[in-house]
């Protein structure tokens, strides 16, 4: 193998698994250290820079970081990254003075945002400090988009949404709320320098099976129903409720139904339990509230009696896989199952919907009705029009919407300055030694053996009484500290200088995870098989040095490194050093412009 070039910014970024997995590349270990130090406001601001909604995401994020967390590979459970984010939000001081200052002199450019959800607000947050005039349209009367309409208050209190959307609104966003944009053509005619579409995936998919029309009064589309609950238009539901669907919306629907009078609430899914789209923790939360999840049931008929819904009939299926591993659900031939109920909530998916965009103005749509959007620049086929969030590539989640927003803001800023929007400067990485003394490091390198701490919950009886009572209490400061200490500080990198190495084996002997081997060089696959511990996780890189004095090379498998720094402590020559890698992320502004 060729020696690893650690100057390539992605090399060490990938070692920070959580940050690499986060669409917005939040520097997770950095803010977790700040939480451990009790510097909650600082931890909050590190988050805010990256993901704009730490308090919201600390309760609702889809957490791509946690399955990636190295801790999950070296023991069992990842660090509770998401809920630590909430700790930062819960215990911070007033941070309003630390938000970016918006210049009084504007740059004369005006940008329209269609929708005021997470993607659009991220664009506003990035462009307002640059002096842009930003106008946001939303059909609802308040900002937040799906954050406000689709996430029930028992998971995310309204005050948190108000606070964090308020930070962006307070930067001088011109809000035209309660105004639905009915024509893109008309909007473009208003002469904006750029338009960003962040309208989400606002249409819940329906289920056209027999009985749908007859029993319509008691069959609700999940996201519409959640929005109505959120705005107080609906405050009760029948005692027996069947929720159709296996995504996170289905989980929100069933748990909301439990709080509005549903006593016998069931979730049914077509697939197997394991393949459900809902996050594992959301399934757990639903089951914890006494909601069974029944799998391999395909809805066949809504049964009704003179227009009154009486239940749903399901066909039982089983999963079969063909040679290529493709799954099909085939009827088992067992008798159909009938679940009697008073109401049905349909949460079988969401769709985009752009009836307001004229098809003859240069914005191309594909055959699925989705806009043709560049995956890197987020620009549509009409220059100056950008899409982001669920509106760009279909339903994902908040953190993806934020990531899209940041990228779209860069494009918009470049576009408004006449730059080539496809040109992105490379991300920079800065390495700083953490050595303070012979055996002192500026990070806590002791490895705590504590297992993941569960987040304290409110008593179930109280929690199920009201839609407004937040179920999770969040970590208190003490638990937050204990959980923060589980973080392995993967951003403090093991940096090897081959010129210094005398091949004394001290690092090999001390490494608790057998990561380090001195051996003859070879091809990667072959090399992986003959390390001190075989490097079987191909998704994790090998760090290979140049040839050493004996002709061997140092090979470090990054996979299970605890970042404990013992290799550097035992190294007599300083060939190993622990250096913090700071990935400098791109943000809209002069650093991304050519002039």
């Amino acid at each position, binding site marked *: 193998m060729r020696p690893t070039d650690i100057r390539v910014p992605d090399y060490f970024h990938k070692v920070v698994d959580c940050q690499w997995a986060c669409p917005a590349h939040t520097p997770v270990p950095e803010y977790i250290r700040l939480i451990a130090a009790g510097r909650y406001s600082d931890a909050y601001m590190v988050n805010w820079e990256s993901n704009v909604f730490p308090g919201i995401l600390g309760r609702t994020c889809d957490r791509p970081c946690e399955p990636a967390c190295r801790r999950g590979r070296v023991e069992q459970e990842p660090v509770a990254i998401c809920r630590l984010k909430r700790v930062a939000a819960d215990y911070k001081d007033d941070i309003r003075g630390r938000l970016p200052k918006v210049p009084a002199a504007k740059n004369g450019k005006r940008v329209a945002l269609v929708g005021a959800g997470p993607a659009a607000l991220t664009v506003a947050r990035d462009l307002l400090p640059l002096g842009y005039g930003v106008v946001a349209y939303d059909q609802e009367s308040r900002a937040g988009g799906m954050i406000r309409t689709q996430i029930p208050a028992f998971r995310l209190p309204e005050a948190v949404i108000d606070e964090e959307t308020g930070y962006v609104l307070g930067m001088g966003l011109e809000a035209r709320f309660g105004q639905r944009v009915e024509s893109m053509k008309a909007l473009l005619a208003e002469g904006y320098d750029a338009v960003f579409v962040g309208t989400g995936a606002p249409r819940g998919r329906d289920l056209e099976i027999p009985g749908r029309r007859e029993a319509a009064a008691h069959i609700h589309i999940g996201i519409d129903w959640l929005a109505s609950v959120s705005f107080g238009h609906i405050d009760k539901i029948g005692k027996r409720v069947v929720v159709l669907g296996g995504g996170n919306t289905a989980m929100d629907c069933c748990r909301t139904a439990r709080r509005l009078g549903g006593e016998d609430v069931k979730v049914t899914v077509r697939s197997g339990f394991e393949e459900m789209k809902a996050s594992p923790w959301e399934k757990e939360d639903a089951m914890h509230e006494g909601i069974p999840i029944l799998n391999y049931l395909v809805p066949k008929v809504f049964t009704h009696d003179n227009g009154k819904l009486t239940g749903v009939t399901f066909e039982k299926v089983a999963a079969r896989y063909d040679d290529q591993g493709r799954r099909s659900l085939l009827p088992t031939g067992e008798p159909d199952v009938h679940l009697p109920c008073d109401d049905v909530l349909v949460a079988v998916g969401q769709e985009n919907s752009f009836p307001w965009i004229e098809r003859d103005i240069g914005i191309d749509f594909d055959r699925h009705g989705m806009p043709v959007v560049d995956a890197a620049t987020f620009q549509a086929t009409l220059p100056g029009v950008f899409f982001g969030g669920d509106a760009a590539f279909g339903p994902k989640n908040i953190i993806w919407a934020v990531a899209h927003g940041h990228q779209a803001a860069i494009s918009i800023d470049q576009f408004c300055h006449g730059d080539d929007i496809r040109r992105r400067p490379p991300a920079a990485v800065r390495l700083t030694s953490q050595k303070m003394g012979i055996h002192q490091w500026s990070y806590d390198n002791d490895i705590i053996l504590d297992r993941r701490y569960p987040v304290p919950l409110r008593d179930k009886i109280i929690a199920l009484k009201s839609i407004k009572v937040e179920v999770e209490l969040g970590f208190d400061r003490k638990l937050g500290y204990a959980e923060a200490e589980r973080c392995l500080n993967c951003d403090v990198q093991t940096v090897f200088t081959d010129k210094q190495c005398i091949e*004394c*084996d001290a690092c090999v002997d001390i490494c608790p995870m057998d990561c380090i081997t001195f051996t003859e060089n070879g091809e990667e696959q072959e090399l992986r098989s003959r390390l001190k511990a075989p490097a079987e996780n191909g998704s994790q890189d090998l760090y290979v040095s140049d040839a050493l*004095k004996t002709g061997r090379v140092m090979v470090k498998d990054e996979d299970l490194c605890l970042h404990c720094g013992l290799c550097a402590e*035992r190294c*007599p020559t300083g060939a190993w050093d622990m250096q913090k890698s700071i990935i400098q992320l791109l943000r809209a502004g002069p650093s991304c412009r050519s002039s």
Partner: protein
Amino acid sequence: MTYLAKPKLHHPKLPVNRLGYTRRDYEGAVSTLCAGCGHDSISAAIVQACFELDLPPHRIAKLSGIGCSSKTPTYFLGNSHGFNSVHGRMPSVLTGANLANRELIYLGVSGDGDSASIGLGQFAHSMRRGVNMTYIVENNGVYGLTKGQFSATADKGSKSKRGAVNNDSAIDLVTLAIQLGAGFVGRGFSGDKAQLVPLIKAAIEYPGAAFIDCISPCIAFNNHAGSTKSFDYVRAHNEAVNRLDFIPAGGEITMQAAPGSLSEVPMPDGSVLRLRRLSEDHDPTDRTAALNYLRQREAQGEIVTGLLYLDPEPDDLHAHLHTVPAPLNRLGDAELCPGSAALERINAALR
């Protein structure tokens, strides 16, 4: 030194031996020696050897004297018996322990000062008595704890870190051990575990006095140009005479080598020492030839490593003394005090 304990977490696929232990279960406290000390590598090799031999940690006794090397038993085999004796007196304490309980596995850990200076006499007598043990000298040619004076194993003409030249002759513990009657004599290098681990395994299984001189560079005081015990010097002058493979009793022989260069030495317990000769002139089972060979190579400035001498018919102190097979510490009053009738008989026989 390191202030942190080595984290308990280990590689999820760390192998387990026949006793259900991982290698990590044979470790001790975290080392307080200087970073990069060769002694730590020897500790790691001992850990690896005991793990691979499936030794029950509570059946091992590790004894040492005074010095950097003699501190190391704290850093391996944390669940074994240990004794830090007086400077240079490890061999007699070990001999006593071995006499009292012949069933334990004895590991004597010493250094060049402990064994070649203050304890030279003790070393000599334990060798000639054939105490069943593995005696490892962690040899760095320097007094590290007192800031780098030459030890008795420092080569004549080698230079100290401050530039002083050593004018005294070096004591070669390997030659001494062979002359004094040790049944198993080898030399290793802390920087080559592939050679050292099988050597330690074979020494532990050898039922007699087994001696290993292990060159172990002192990073702080003896790893400079002019030293003959530095990493660079040892690597440049290392002359391995053989590669050793220890095959436990009933174990499968998997190693393949060119015929003619292989020799197998069966051990009394059914295990086999398999030697792949790298030098055709060296016969490890011939004491005189081995001594001659060592002299020749060393005269040419080579550091000869590997299994240097092996007595294929081992015996030990207990055999010399005709002791009973049961450990002496387990003999009760009935065995030790045969009664006045027996005393009468003995007295009568002497009249």
